């Protein structure tokens, strides 16, 4: 453990993620062929390795000098398997949305790789990137700004076909758009309407239809329901689950609502200040959390049963989230953690199965970036 690096440099603090089988494509044709190859269910389809995004902080009017960086995402690794839903939770500003943008190549990664079927998409351009974009689509958080107010629904959902004309021949596009409207539960007659004529939930369905148009394999959902009413949230979530079965989709589901993430996810990752704190199956995370941050988050989830609520322990964190421009040394969570010791300030905890659980066959044996990981059932505690 002596060689564990300090927090100055973003490092891969995830020692035991699987090796990526990369595909060395010499020509764009080979890259496109690799991107269009099918992936078996349960195989990794998207592999993120030590992904880093630092936004430079500059000073000066004409000659800009970099005086620091906001470390929005600082060394994150995970796998997304074909057909599964990976939930990413964390509080505002922890870098969830930046991860989504990096996976969509809407932002340029500072370092690290994102492998889609063995191709590092952070280094692709031109035709190969376009092929990746066909297969990875996004559903945005705010249905009020993610649809162009000056385009009809038909134009919005039909635009993917205009950009990728090989997907649908010109004559069939209108029919395809109407089919998509039908798939997401909207009346196909609304093709000539404008976004402002729809409610929030209906708009989000339009956004989902646009994401589905190119028949993608992965849909990245950046808080797709947080702008909606609770009742409409359930409708949209159920629709997304139905579509996942129907079209064999893999979801990366980013949210801050723990209940919704549990409902839809097969696996869950918890982010704090640009790093992954804990990752595991939904049962492992929700019923057997070992990272203090996860425990604190879960203890804040509202419990509808008043009697269960009485006996429950609430972990109330003190202080604010430190600035990502100047994160704490060692463990990022140590400034708010009740277990913090000197070791936490000196060593970056690795995202690995805690040593005390390594040989045990318990649900607590999942990856957790804490020096003092221990199980604490905060949800059912009475």
């Amino acid at each position, binding site marked *: 453990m002596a060689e564990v690096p300090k927090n100055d440099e973003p490092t891969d603090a995830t020692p035991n993620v699987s090796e990526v089988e990369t595909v060395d494509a010499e020509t764009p044709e080979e890259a496109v062929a690799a991107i269009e190859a099918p992936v078996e269910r349960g195989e990794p389809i998207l592999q993120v390795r030590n992904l880093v995004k630092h936004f430079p902080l500059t000073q000066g009017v004409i000659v800009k000098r970099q005086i620091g960086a906001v470390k929005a995402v600082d060394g994150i690794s995970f796998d997304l398997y074909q057909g599964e839903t990976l939930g990413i939770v964390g509080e505002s500003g922890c870098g969830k949305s930046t991860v989504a943008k990096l996976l969509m190549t*809407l932002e340029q990664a500072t370092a690290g790789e994102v492998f889609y079927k063995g191709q590092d998409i952070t280094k692709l351009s031109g035709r190969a990137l376009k092929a990746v974009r066909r297969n990875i*689509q996004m559903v*945005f958080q705010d249905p009020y700004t993610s649809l162009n*107010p000056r385009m009809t629904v*038909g134009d919005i959902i039909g635009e993917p076909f205009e950009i990728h004309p090989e997907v649908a021949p010109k004559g069939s596009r209108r029919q395809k758009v109407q089919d998509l409207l039908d798939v997401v*539960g909207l009346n196909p007659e609304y093709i000539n309407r*404008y976004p402002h004529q729809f409610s929030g939930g209906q708009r989000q369905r339009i956004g989902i239809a646009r994401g589905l148009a190119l028949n993608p394999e992965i849909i990245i959902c950046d808080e797709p329901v947080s702008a909606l009413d609770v009742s409409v949230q359930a409708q949209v979530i159920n629709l997304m689950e139905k579509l996942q079965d129907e079209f064999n989709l893999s979801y990366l589901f980013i949210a801050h609502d723990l*209940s919704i993430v549990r409902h839809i996810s097969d696996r869950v990752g918890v982010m704090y200040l640009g790093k992954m704190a804990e990752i595991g199956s939904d049962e492992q995370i929700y019923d057997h959390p070992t990272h203090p941050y996860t425990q604190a988050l879960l203890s804040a989830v509202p419990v*509808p049963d008043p009697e269960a609520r009485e006996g429950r322990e609430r972990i109330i964190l003190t202080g604010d989230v430190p600035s990502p421009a100047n994160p704490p040394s060692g463990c990022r969570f140590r400034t708010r953690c009740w277990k913090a010791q000197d070791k936490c300030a000196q060593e970056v905890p690795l995202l690995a199965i805690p040593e005390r659980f390594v040989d045990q066959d318990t649900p607590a044996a999942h990856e957790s970036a804490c020096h003092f990981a221990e199980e604490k059932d905060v949800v*059912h505690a009475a």
Partner: protein
Amino acid sequence: MPEPHEPAEGAVAGTGMGGAMDLAASEATTLAAGEAGAGPGAGPGGGPRGGPSAPARSLWSDAWRDLRRNPVFLVSGLIILFLVLISLWPSAITSGDPLDCDLANAQKGSSPGHPFGFNGQGCDVYTRTVYGARASVTVGVCATLGVAVLGSVLGGLAGFFGGVWDAILSRITDVFFAIPVVLGGLVLLSVVTSNTVWPVIGFMVLLGWPQISRIARGSVITAKQHDYVQAARALGASNARMLLRHIAPNAVAPVIVVATIALGTYIALEATLSYLGVGLKPPTVSWGIDISAASQYIRNAPHMLLWPAGALAVTVLAFIMLGDAVRDALDPKLR
């Protein structure tokens, strides 16, 4: 109109954690049931009802359909059409010669055959107002078009691409903003000997584009931050598509407003330059020249000022109304 159908996708399987979800699920089911009852025609298997036969519509076709029914657009369009026609063929509505003047008639009021009276040189005001439309409308329309196109293209590109080009363009606009219009006109136009409207238009475009460029840059920066532009990029859209399909329609409104208001300013600026002797020179006839010449005699002979000034006001009003109508037609929320 029945509400769009929200099918019930089956109740959420409530888990221990999901207290909120359980509530939500039951609510959703109730809602869906209620809506299905309210809109019996929108059953899940109903399929497209008359959808395929309806023609595809787009922003532009909808805007045109809207404009054709808008009285403001029709009135302003007719006025502008009339102005264009008399600019091309002024002799169609007057038989006089704008340069046929008799000092004996100087400053005389309206008389039979001369409804607008005479000006300070004894020329017929009606004839001069009709003939003046050509120079004034040409200057106003061409300068506005030039400024709007140059300014919105440069400002829009700077706003969209940002970085070094934006910094360079912003500093260049600062330089142009620092040039006083009248002084710049005196310096630049005094070296031009041509007696056409084009040097004047060129000068106005040269000094006018930074204003539109600033506005276009700002509204492009606002528009490009919206999620729908990111969504288009995520789909693999080219820069040209993002600019033309997504950003331009959402950023053009302020440019239209400022450009149509500026049109009147350009016609007035032409008058100022002509008054200073660097704009249009007699025998060219323009409203600007006549307005500045008549302004000294407003107390003795107001008709000399009012007719060309009224023509200018109507022209500017028509263009502003046209710009307003177009802007509204391009905003689906206002339909």
